[in-house]
């Protein structure tokens, strides 16, 4: 993916074409511009189109777009951290919507997004790490989350490729995965079939009387009822055009993909090996996604030897067979991080500007709930209760008071 130029990338996606589709002539739904063609923008565009909106998706492919690189983990439990209960509740709500989304996408596009629901193993590789897992388990107890302790041998019975380095593990059945690229392919086919018009450019908001009433892009000026901003780390620049300044910054993630002639793992495995956090997410094509660094270094797309050394050392320590796999990819994604790791959702203080951004590590997990919030916002319906703490206008007010 990252080795290709932007145009090449487009050429590989025949579903995105420069040919404009005719808008449904009888549609009287709201006119919506969705800016951003990652998992969030695509999922929102699909949902809006299904709800009768006239949707244009503005999608300028960007190097470092995290959806292209994401491991596709849907992991509300393993991603839970202290002080993030509201984010967890949002994640759980969204996860519950994934089976239906996966089924619908399959029906609409013919693409199986490979939703794996056989759980995740979180492994300990030394006594200190075991203590760390015990602390995590305590946190999960506080949230009444289900998990099961496994001995090292039990871990190896679940996943025979694991090495003796694994001392113990937690089996978390609630944490799943999807194939990120299959999801994107399915969404692109679905939105194209659903009548979404696609423009290969960013769209800037145009305001009248303090409201977003149109967007400007290489395609010209288009009148809109709503602008849905789903442009990840590129959102801040566009929001500032409308007088908003959501605090979104890039957190760089480097990731490797290893391909093997045989299936090595059947489920997601996460571990910390010599203080390096690593996850291994298997794909049906027998690729294993190995990630991911988390580097708060700004807009940086360099691929570093340190990441290769750290990730491969950790991955091969717990799954030695991977040493003889083929290293097929080393890529970089820029996660859109916010100050509290939670997204900006829903209507902002600027009428007509709806935010669906700042999803940080959780874009795929939070895509279904985000699409529902956006649909409800555009149709003037109440959004799901779990999304209220992330309601954009409240969050931006809170930050304003903070500064």
């Amino acid at each position, binding site marked *: 993916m990252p080795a290709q130029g932007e145009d090449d990338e487009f050429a590989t996606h025949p579903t995105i074409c420069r040919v404009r589709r005719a808008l449904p002539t009888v549609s009287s739904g709201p006119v919506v511009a969705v800016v951003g063609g990652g998992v969030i923008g695509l999922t929102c565009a699909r949902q809006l189109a299904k709800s009768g909106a006239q949707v244009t998706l503005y999608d300028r492919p960007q190097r470092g777009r995290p959806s292209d690189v994401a491991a596709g983990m849907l992991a509300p439990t393993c991603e839970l951290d*202290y002080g993030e209960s509201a984010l967890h509740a949002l994640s759980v709500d969204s996860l519950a919507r994934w089976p239906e989304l996966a089924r619908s996408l399959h029906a609409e596009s013919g693409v199986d997004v490979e939703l794996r629901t056989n759980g995740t193993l979180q492994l300990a590789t030394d006594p200190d790490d075991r203590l760390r897992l015990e602390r995590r388990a305590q946190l999960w107890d506080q949230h009444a989350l289900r998990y099961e302790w496994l001995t090292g041998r039990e871990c190896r019975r679940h996943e025979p490729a694991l090495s003796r380095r694994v001392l113990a593990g937690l089996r978390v059945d609630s944490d799943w995965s999807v194939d990120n690229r299959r999801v994107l392919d399915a969404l692109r086919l679905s939105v194209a079939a659903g009548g979404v018009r696609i423009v290969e450019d960013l769209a800037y908001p145009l305001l009248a009387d303090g409201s977003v009433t149109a967007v400007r892009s290489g395609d010209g000026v288009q009148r809109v009822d709503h602008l849905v901003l789903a442009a990840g780390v590129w959102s801040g620049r566009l929001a500032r055009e409308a007088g908003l300044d959501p605090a979104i910054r890039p957190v760089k993630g480097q990731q490797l993909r290893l391909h093997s002639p045989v299936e090595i793992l059947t489920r997601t495995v996460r571990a910390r090996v010599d203080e390096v956090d690593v996850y291994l997410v298997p794909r049906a094509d027998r690729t294993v996604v190995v990630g991911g660094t988390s580097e708060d270094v700004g*807009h*940086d797309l360099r691929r570093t030897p340190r990441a290769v050394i750290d990730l491969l050392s950790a991955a091969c320590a717990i799954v030695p067979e991977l040493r003889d796999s083929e290293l097929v990819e080393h890529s970089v994604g820029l996660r859109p991080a916010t100050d509290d*790791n939670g997204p900006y959702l829903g209507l902002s203080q600027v009428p007509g500007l709806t935010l669906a951004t700042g999803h940080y590590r959780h874009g795929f997990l939070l895509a279904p709930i985000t699409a529902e919030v956006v649909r409800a916002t555009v149709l003037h319906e109440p959004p799901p209760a779990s999304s209220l703490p992330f309601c954009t206008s409240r969050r931006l007010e809170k930050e304003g008071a903070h500064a």
Partner: protein
Amino acid sequence: MSTTCTNDDPFAVADTILSSRLLLGSGGASSSGVLRDAVIASGAQVVTVSMRRTHSGVDNGLMHALKDLEVRVLPNTSGCRTAREAVLVAELAREALGTDWVKLEVVSDDRTLLPDVIELVEAAETLVAKGFHVLPYTTDDVVIAQRLEEVGCSAVMPLGAPIGSGLGIRNPHAITLIRETVDVPVILDAGVGTASDAALAMELGCDAVLLATAVTRAERPALMAGAMRHAVIAGRDAYRAGRVPRRHLAQASSPLSPTV
């Protein structure tokens, strides 16, 4: 806001008077918001940042979190394995952040993160010659502390225990010896797990405490940051107040012939 330093007990490092004897490391926070709240609650005036995390300038969450706070950013050379690498990183830091202060770290390996003191002294000497104010992270070895002072370091920063271990001060006697031996400030660095560890460091005579993990990975970082702030104040005051000697047997606190 109470501070750890009063006019009759100033804390000076390299000709600068600092308002707090608690220095905060920035690694390990779950979000920039969490870090910001912890820095505020700690009252720390100096926050260390890894140059590995800031090499691209100020466009990152760390700098965002510290924005508008009256804190002094102290770059460190964490992760460096050789004197040469540490010197390069320090020079990068000076350019990127506009400060000639550096917390010098040269570690032997990623597993223990223990200081490689041979490389450390070498790097310290080079950096002092280049005009840096060097604050080296070192072992609790008194001779090495002396050597670091001799080459011109502005402070010495002995460890209480390995970085991130939370094991407290494993060899209090060594810390006392260092305090009695060198004239530059002694800043206990690494190993603090909870507030009593920080208080103990100050009671042993340390001039300040630097900690990160104990706060950033606590369940409630801002609450722990406040606890550390109070612990450092309490420990410093106790050290200055002069503790009573330890005795084998009881001594009535209300004697028959009152002195007051």
